[in-house]
């Protein structure tokens, strides 16, 4: 018998990982490479010239190595073995329980030449391990060419490449247990999900203190409609970028989860996923694919106020009222011309809003809308940015999707409303009468009403422009030992500094004054049913709540009985108030912090509040 390895020996071993010891094993001869002592056993790489697999010689065979029977680069015939998985990696290892020596150390490592078509390995330019194919094999023998540049891959890699995009039905007896996306958490790593790629971002390169890299992310949706964002960096990004295709369905496992960074979140999920080179992404076969329904989270038109200039994208549904012709707008950033079309939609809140469509949505879809506008179709749009043009405006972004007369319950309800009463009623544009800087408290105390948690849960709110809301809450704490006021010029209220001699100097008025007034400037803690937040309050608002001027409070403070000052502050707490607040970003010690400032304060009008609550209740009931 030729002293050589059995062709495809490794494949044979892998395809039968737990053979019966009684069954007749085929002839399996492998070359022992990289033989070394690890602990009290010998480890090696078993090679058949094409593939290798890590192998272990149990301790009872160590003597064979020590005596020189089993040698490095020698050949052994495997008589009994088991193939196991390495738990943390996608690799296998071979335990040789019984073997006999076929040949001592050969002159060199056996490497066979491979014709790529015969082996059926799919070559992809972005593959990590490149294999240069050579001329066809010659006969049953094996050519040994020391100058060969073929990289021997581990069996796992070859199997993986061959399997790459093939249907999982080829997997042996492995029933795939699919976990719903909603059940995933960072503490349980053993999951497989079945998801459709509903959005794919571009590959971006970045440079930071640690160097350069590339990254891209995808939005994944499972059959329940749950969504999660998955991000890949560097190696993993290159590996999976071409594999992930929009609209296709994949089985994914071995990803990691962590709490989502609210600043960059695009989908509704507390977690976001990261895939690395060890993660598994396998395309589902045709029978197993599904089309995820576009999941909408509609905001009624008269509720849009609270999202103005925010980072959240909203979904709306309404009856199409008008479609403008296509306009060409010059983009400021690069002077390019961009097509735009404005459409108006209305909903049961009897308000209308203008939605700006851009690029393809403006030209193609916009034309479709223009063709059917007379039929007053229902239009549902996902992922719109909320701006403040003319009060409240909506604008499409790259990921926006538009559905005409979608087959969803909200659409039917809207159509029914429109046909019965909506057609005839006069509607008002939602932005009318709304100006962000309205100081007249009354109307603005009831618009854009939110809870404190809505503000505190989004740390990047107000990054570009200040965002305005109204709130109902209680002051729960005024710290008595904070600096509560500043010295102000009696004429212009600006801060004064110590003047020449006695008195105070006002830079704005350019004059000295013996006296100054004290004006409130403080932070108070406000609480409502959703949580609490620290809010900056200035003189007018503070005076309304405390009930006396800063000068008077100062007098109380310096009185002998400490109590009257503390008492006065305590009395302010737990009284309900309506606040009009602005939310901005503010840098402090190189950190960006959210700052909430009270622009106006008003006592609660209980009858009006009750009416507001009753309206909210009826709205919820009809949803």
């Amino acid at each position: 018998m030729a002293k050589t390895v059995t062709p495809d020996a490794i494949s044979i071993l892998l395809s039968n990982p737990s053979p019966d010891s009684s069954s007749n094993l085929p002839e399996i001869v492998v070359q022992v490479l990289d033989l070394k002592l690890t602990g009290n056993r010998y480890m090696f790489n078993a090679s058949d010239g094409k593939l290798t697999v890590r192998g272990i010689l149990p301790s009872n065979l160590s003597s064979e190595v020590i005596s020189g029977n089993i040698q490095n680069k020698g050949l052994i015939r495997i008589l009994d073995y088991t193939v196991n998985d390495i738990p943390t990696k996608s690799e296998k290892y071979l335990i040789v329980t019984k073997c006999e020596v076929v040949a001592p150390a050969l002159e060199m490592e056996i490497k066979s030449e491979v014709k790529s078509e015969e082996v059926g390995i799919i070559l992809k330019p972005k593959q990590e391990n490149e294999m240069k194919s050579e001329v066809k094999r010659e006969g049953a023998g094996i050519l040994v060419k020391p100058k060969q540049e073929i990289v021997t891959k581990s069996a796992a890699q070859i199997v993986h490449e061959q399997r790459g995009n093939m249907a999982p039905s080829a997997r042996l007896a492995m029933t795939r247990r699919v976990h719903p996306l909603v059940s995933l958490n960072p503490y349980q790593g053993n999951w497989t999900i079945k998801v459709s790629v509903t959005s794919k971002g571009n590959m971006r390169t970045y440079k930071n203190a640690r160097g350069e890299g590339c990254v891209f992310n995808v939005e994944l949706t499972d059959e329940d409609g749950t969504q999660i964002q998955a991000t890949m960096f560097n190696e993993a990004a290159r590996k999976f970028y071409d594999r992930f295709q929009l609209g296709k369905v994949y089985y994914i496992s071995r990803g990691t989860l962590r709490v989502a960074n609210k600043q960059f979140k695009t989908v509704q999920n507390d977690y976001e996923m990261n895939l690395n080179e060890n993660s598994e992404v396998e395309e589902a076969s045709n029978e197993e694919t599904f089309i995820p329904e576009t999941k909408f989270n509609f905001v009624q038109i008269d509720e849009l106020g609270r999202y103005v200039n925010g980072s959240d994208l909203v979904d709306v549904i309404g009856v199409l009222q008008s479609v403008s012709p296509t306009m060409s707008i010059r983009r400021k950033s690069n002077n390019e011309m961009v097509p735009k079309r404005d459409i108006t939609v209305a909903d049961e809140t009897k308000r209308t809003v203008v939605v700006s469509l851009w690029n393809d949505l403006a030209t193609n879809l916009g034309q479709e809308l223009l063709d059917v506008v007379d039929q007053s179709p229902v239009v549902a749009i996902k992922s719109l940015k909320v701006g403040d043009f003319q009060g409240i405006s909506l604008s499409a972004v790259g990921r926006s999707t538009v559905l005409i007369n979608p087959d969803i319950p909200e659409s039917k309800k809207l159509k029914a409303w429109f046909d019965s009463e909506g057609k005839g009623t006069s509607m008002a544009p939602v932005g009318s009468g709304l100006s962000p800087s309205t100081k007249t408290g009354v109307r603005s105390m009831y618009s854009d009403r939110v809870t404190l948690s809505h503000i505190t849960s989004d740390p990047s709110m107000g990054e570009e422009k200040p965002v305005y809301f109204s709130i109902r809450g209680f002051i729960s704490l005024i710290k008595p030992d904070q600096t509560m006021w500043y010295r102000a010029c009696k004429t212009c209220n600006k801060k004064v500094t110590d003047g020449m001699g006695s008195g105070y100097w006002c830079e704005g008025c350019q004059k000295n004054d013996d006296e100054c007034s004290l004006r409130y400037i403080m932070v108070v803690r406000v609480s409502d049913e959703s949580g609490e937040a620290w809010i900056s309050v200035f003189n007018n608002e503070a005076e309304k709540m405390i009930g006396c001027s800063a000068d008077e409070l100062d007098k109380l403070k310096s009185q002998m009985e400490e109590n009257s000052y503390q008492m006065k502050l305590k009395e302010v707490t737990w009284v309900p108030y309506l606040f009009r607040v602005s939310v901005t970003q503010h840098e402090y010690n190189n950190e960006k912090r959210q700052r909430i400032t009270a622009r106006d304060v008003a006592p609660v009008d209980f009858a009006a509040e009750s009416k507001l609550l009753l309206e909210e209740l009826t709205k919820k009931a009809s949803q």
Partner: protein
Amino acid sequence: MDTSNPAVFVNGALLRMYVGRRVRTVIQVIQSDSGGVTGKSTDDHQLVVKGSQPTIPLTNFVEVIGIADSDRSIRAEMWTNFGNTFDTNNYNQLCQLANGEYKHLFI
């Protein structure tokens, strides 16, 4: 808070459903005499409230808690002045919700 004998929020129309039961309602006082207090319920029904009135004078709007005698009279055990302004619309909606889809939140 003593929850052993809860009173149901009623208006004029709902009163008939709770005859013999403990109820509470807000009425606008129209007239007060020896026969009792005649008032207008928040849904514009005329109701008569009997029972010993409090010593202090009644304001325009009064809440009464007591046993429903008939579909338009109550034998009051407790009277509370609610002042001279009151949003009857809100209260009326409250009665409807408390006896309708949110009944389970009220005893």
